[in-house]
């Protein structure tokens, strides 16, 4: 296990059983340190979203424990917990009736900051995600492109100065070029602000490109954890090899074009 800094998030043997005996997560342990990005990968239905939702208590665990900043989240107020954790979801999840400015300023405003500070924070965040506050501030989400909406989603999640950001397939609805740009921008942002992040993705190539560490899940369990390099070098079983097959083939095909 590679530990660069004390863990922001520590997940210990966590389980989730839904009504009807669906065992979505069956004993997963992981940890994420400041400034690090952990990517959760795995086939559809293997429990990635369930795990993510337990971290900010959108779902309650059925067993095990989760520590956030060293403290068990069971004893925390769920709303207070969520305000310390950024939340980015697939298809942005912006509030359609609020302008970009109000969407981004929402969390600081709910936290009771005065309007001038909120406004300052909004500008800062929009500039951070490379959107001109004067041009985009008053627009409604419906008046933005998909990539711009996702940038606003990031800006909103980061406005509360979270120690941890959780992301469920944040790029899956974007075209490859926009996606590439946003992926790069996200890494730069993380390097600058130093928050820890957990991202769920279906796309193994994305996982390999972005992650400090990849955790592969299968049927509710963790089958392998490691850096992208470790994963490529020594996949533990056929399942992981299978997941890596697609990016590997794509790389080969492109390399052959160059010969």
């Amino acid at each position, binding site marked *: 296990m590679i530990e660069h800094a004390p863990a922001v998030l520590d997940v210990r043997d966590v389980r989730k059983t839904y009504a009807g005996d669906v065992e979505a997560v069956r004993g997963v342990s992981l940890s994420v340190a400041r400034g690090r990005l952990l990517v959760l990968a795995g086939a559809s239905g293997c429990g990635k979203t369930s795990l993510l939702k337990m971290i900010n208590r959108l779902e309650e665990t059925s067993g095990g424990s989760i520590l956030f900043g060293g403290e068990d989240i069971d004893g925390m107020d769920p709303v207070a917990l*969520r305000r310390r954790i950024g939340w980015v979801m697939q298809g942005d999840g*912006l*509030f*359609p009736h609020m302008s970009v400015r109000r969407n981004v300023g929402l*969390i600081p405003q709910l936290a009771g900051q005065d309007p001038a500070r909120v406004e300052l924070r909004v500008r800062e965040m929009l500039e951070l995600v490379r959107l001109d506050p004067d041009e985009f501030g008053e627009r409604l989400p419906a008046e933005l492109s998909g990539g711009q909406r996702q940038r606003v989603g990031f800006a909103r999640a980061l406005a*509360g100065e979270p120690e941890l950001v959780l992301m469920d397939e944040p790029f899956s609805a974007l075209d490859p070029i926009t996606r590439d740009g946003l992926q790069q921008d996200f890494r730069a942002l993380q390097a600058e602000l130093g928050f820890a992040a957990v991202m769920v993705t279906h796309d193994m190539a994305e996982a390999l490109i972005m992650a400090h560490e990849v955790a592969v899940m299968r049927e509710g369990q963790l089958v392998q954890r490691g850096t992208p390099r470790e994963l490529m070098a020594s996949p533990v079983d056929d399942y992981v090899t299978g997941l890596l097959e697609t990016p590997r083939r794509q790389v080969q095909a492109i390399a052959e074009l160059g010969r």
Partner: protein
Amino acid sequence: MNANLAERWAELPDLLAGHVLLSLSAILVGLTLSLPLGIYAASRPRLAGLVLNLASIVQTIPGLALLALMVPLLGGTIGYAPAFLALMLYSILPILRNTIVGLQGVDPVVRDAARGIGMTAREQLWRVELPLALPVIVAGLRTAVVWVVGAATLATPVGASSLGNYIFAGLQTRNWLSVLFGCLFAAGLAIILDQMIRLLEVAARERRSRLAGLVGLALAVLLTVTIAPRFVDFGPAGRNAREAGEVARMARLSDTTIRVGAKAFTEQYILGALLEDRLAGAGGRVERRDNLGSSIAFDALRSGEIDVYVDYSGTIWATVMNRPEPVNRHAMLAEMTGWLWAEHGILALGSLGFENAYGFAMARESAEALGVASLADLAPLAAELTVGGDAEVFSRPEWVMTRDSYGLSAMQTRAMDATFMYGAVRDGQVDLISAYTTDGRIAAFDLVVLDDPLAVLPPYDAVVLLSPGAAANPALVDVLASLIGTIDDDAMREANRRVDLDRQTPAQAAAWLAGRIGPEGAAQ
């Protein structure tokens, strides 16, 4: 026509005030009940299903029936209370349904996002769910406003004055200007309120505070102007000055407010106006409660909601006393008088002198062609004949007994408004109608009332009925007693004819009757 228009305008402030007050209070209370209930139920699917079903059941009850049902439910209370209650119930469904549907329709992704970024349940509701559901909720509110403002015209028969008074009275006296007045003002009011709510929603959505302010101001002005007459009484001052001399002379009823009821047909309007004239002449303050439904009028008298009205012995006999067997005119009057006094403390002061019976009338031409002179001649022809009557008559014992005694069950029945029956039988649209024998149109349209050889149809002496409270006021009894025995069949028929055919107002016809009767005491 000009007098008619002037009279209609004069009625407007009071009726408009009643209408606005009634419908707005019903909507406001309906809104304050259904909005929280809808919010509470939206996240509880089983409760939501239950309340929506209940509200839908209320909605399937026809408006008029719902209004009428409130009267017995409130123990015979008429006026504002039952009308308010019924309309309030009526306003609930659209608001409740749209609140639930609107909230449930909020995109689950957005709902999850609100929870995920750390909003409390209250913040989710107020900042995300309600704003997103607002257009749907407002659409429900607008539906409720249009329904309730429209349905408030049906408050007239339960004794709450509204723009419906124009429509009911106009229909009965064939005063189309009056009907038009009621329709135009009710529709106009509904449209204006609907548009104001629409603009308020636009203002809220687009955060245009100036627009919101303007609409709010317009709404306030509308309310003040329409409702003011209810609280600032302009009328009596002028009237009192005019009648000061008279009042001083015979102020026997001064400081007594007497509520005079009337059912919803011409003769009743005229008699109501006549009673008002007499009572006001004796210094009383008179409030009219016109257009009461037939059984509602009696209930209102019993509970003291009204003090006096004119009913008919046969009606009381059959529908209040539930006596199926016919008896002779004088016995009925005596027995009815004793029964009302013993059972309810209601004083039947006596007969006005005329009888307004149910009879069956045919156009003279077709009666002669068919060789019909009496109800007994109809049986062999029954299968080919159609009888018209008001909605009430076919469920009354009079028709049932006539049908059974004369073997008329093969006859087709057609219910229509009493206003239209006489024209319908004259023009041959129906062969026979259940006519009121004092109606001026019997002579005018050359109709014949068929004989009743088996004496099935009960007598219908017009009697002045006083509530227990009014019966205890000797001055009041005295004033009204002067009318007993003063109006014969011909006089009443002529008065009715003046309204129905000459287009006089009931007040004008009542004045003619009063002139014929002579001043109080003269007839005695």
